[in-house]
């Protein structure tokens, strides 16, 4: 399920990167008179033409509200929307489409769980276990849930490479642990967490598990039946889809036991002023008119990714990550932050006393888009004793030329600030 040596096929699947690039219009432009080199994929990925076309097609031909009309367009929109749910179900290998809830983004998915599950399940002195490499969106909702319920937030530390210290993680799992919430792949460091082991540890004490797959789902195949968490979340805009759409996978029995998150239309089966009855899954958790267009277009993005295939994507990106790691280590004064044993996509670094913000501004004028800052993971920065890093992050359309352009631009940084 993750690109490890054992499941790399004997003849590696190949990816025609030139052909892939041709499908992404935004890659073919200049910034400041230089060809754009887009290396900020962990923030959001560019969109293939099929995704852009699908959005336009929906509004030109199919636009209607779902689940309410008897007219032709409403039936078309409903069929496409529910078809999108099926696509997401197959993408994650969930048992049923009732387990797929559309949200706005990963952040909303986690908040939904922290509210609806957390407030009904957590009690004083229960514990929520996260890791030190979480994105703020998998920290803050749990802090808030703990503040509401009296539960206690525990944090498993990471080591100097950016790996979760699993002995410590195991030590922190106890009968008090009620929720283990971990990211699949770290956006700040690129670490792939040993989620199988984490799920097993959580299960051994009967704790629930949420996996934040925001960074994972566009680099590796995910099978929620094999992984078996209670919740798995991701955000559409990182998997080559539109913004404004996210997914919450939840095990059906767990979702059924949860109270609704928001109240309103669509999430009820009957309403009187005395009492409302909740709708069945997944609608119980989708109050109000959903983001119909972007859900449909997310499915198009997912089909696109599946057509390229995770074998080909994984092989290409792993080779590129190796190349990038090697090339960046040749840059005088550069230190990689995050050198975990299992990594994907992310090259976070610092360069002596040159501030990442200055690095970002200077390489931008060379056409190279990277992210600088704390990457919504301030505790990770604190762990390494740095205010920020510069981060290049890879997607299927990146090439060794992109890495070379970054290395060249870093030369300009040294020229100017060195």
């Amino acid at each position, binding site marked *: 399920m993750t690109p490890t040596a054992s499941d790399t096929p004997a003849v590696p699947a190949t990816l025609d990167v030139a052909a892939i690039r041709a499908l992404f219009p935004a890659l073919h432009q200049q910034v400041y008179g230089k060809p754009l080199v887009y290396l900020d994929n962990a923030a959001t990925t560019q969109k293939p033409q099929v995704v852009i076309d699908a959005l336009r097609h929906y509004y030109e031909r199919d636009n209607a509200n779902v689940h309410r009309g008897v007219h032709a367009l409403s039936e078309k929109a409903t069929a496409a929307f529910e078809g999108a749910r099926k696509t997401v179900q197959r993408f994650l290998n969930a048992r049923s489409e009732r387990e797929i809830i559309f949200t706005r983004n990963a952040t909303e998915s986690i908040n939904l769980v922290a509210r609806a599950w957390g407030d009904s399940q957590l009690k004083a002195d229960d514990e929520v276990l996260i890791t030190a490499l979480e994105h703020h969106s998998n920290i803050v909702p749990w802090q808030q849930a703990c503040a509401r319920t009296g539960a206690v937030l525990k944090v498993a530390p990471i080591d100097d490479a950016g790996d979760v210290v699993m002995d410590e993680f195991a030590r922190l799992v106890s009968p008090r642990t009620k929720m283990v919430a971990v990211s699949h792949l770290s956006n700040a460091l690129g670490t792939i967490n040993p989620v199988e082991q984490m799920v097993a540890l959580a299960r051994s004490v009967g704790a629930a598990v949420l996996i934040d797959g925001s960074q994972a789902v566009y680099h590796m195949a995910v099978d929620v039946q094999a992984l078996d968490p209670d919740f798995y979340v991701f955000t559409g805009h990182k998997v080559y889809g539109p913004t404004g759409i996210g997914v919450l996978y939840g095990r059906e029995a767990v979702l059924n036991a949860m109270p609704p998150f928001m109240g309103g239309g669509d999430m009820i089966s009957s309403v009187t002023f005395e009492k409302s009855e909740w709708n069945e899954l997944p609608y119980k958790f989708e109050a109000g008119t959903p983001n119909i267009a972007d859900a449909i277009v997310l499915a198009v993005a997912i089909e696109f990714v599946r057509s390229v295939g995770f074998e080909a994507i994984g092989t290409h990106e792993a080779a590129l990550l190796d190349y990038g790691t090697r090339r960046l280590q040749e840059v005088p004064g550069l230190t990689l932050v995050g050198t975990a044993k299992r990594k994907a996509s992310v090259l976070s670094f610092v360069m002596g006393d040159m*501030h*990442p913000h200055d690095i970002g*501004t200077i390489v931008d*004028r060379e056409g190279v888009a990277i992210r600088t*800052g*704390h990457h919504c993971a*301030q505790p990770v920065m604190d762990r390494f004793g740095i*205010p920020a890093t510069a981060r290049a992050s890879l997607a299927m359309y990146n090439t060794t030329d992109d890495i070379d352009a970054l290395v060249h631009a870093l030369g300009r940084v040294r020229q*100017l*600030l060195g």
Partner: protein
Amino acid sequence: MQDLHDLYQEVILDHNKRPRNFGPLPDATQSAKGHNPLCGDKLTLSLKIHDGRIEKVAFEGSGCAISKASASLMTDAVKGQTIDEAAHLFDLFHQMVTTPIDQPIDEDAVGKLAVLGGVREYPARVKCASLAWHTLKAALTNTAEPAKTE
């Protein structure tokens, strides 16, 4: 690279490498902390004010070249000024960095600080240049809250 030199002028690079008035100020009468959450820049500004005049000023912290150079230039500029003069210079600086790019800045009014006018072309960096000044304002009014750039 022409335009990058508008931002990273020699004076700025020099103040970044060798910041003036950098370090603690043991006999400070007031101080304030500034924080730019966007890039993690943090600085502490300390003032020794006597008879309404800034006798000594020093800053500590970490930040990008722009924020460090701006803090360094600011401390040089306000040293010896009265509180009112420093507050007025804050206004002039603020005016300069918010002047539209197609309009000239008033170099006479801001003197040496004019080298920071280049940030106007880099909207994401204006806050880096302003952090020290917002912290100064906080230190002058001695507020306990860390200064923010917005």
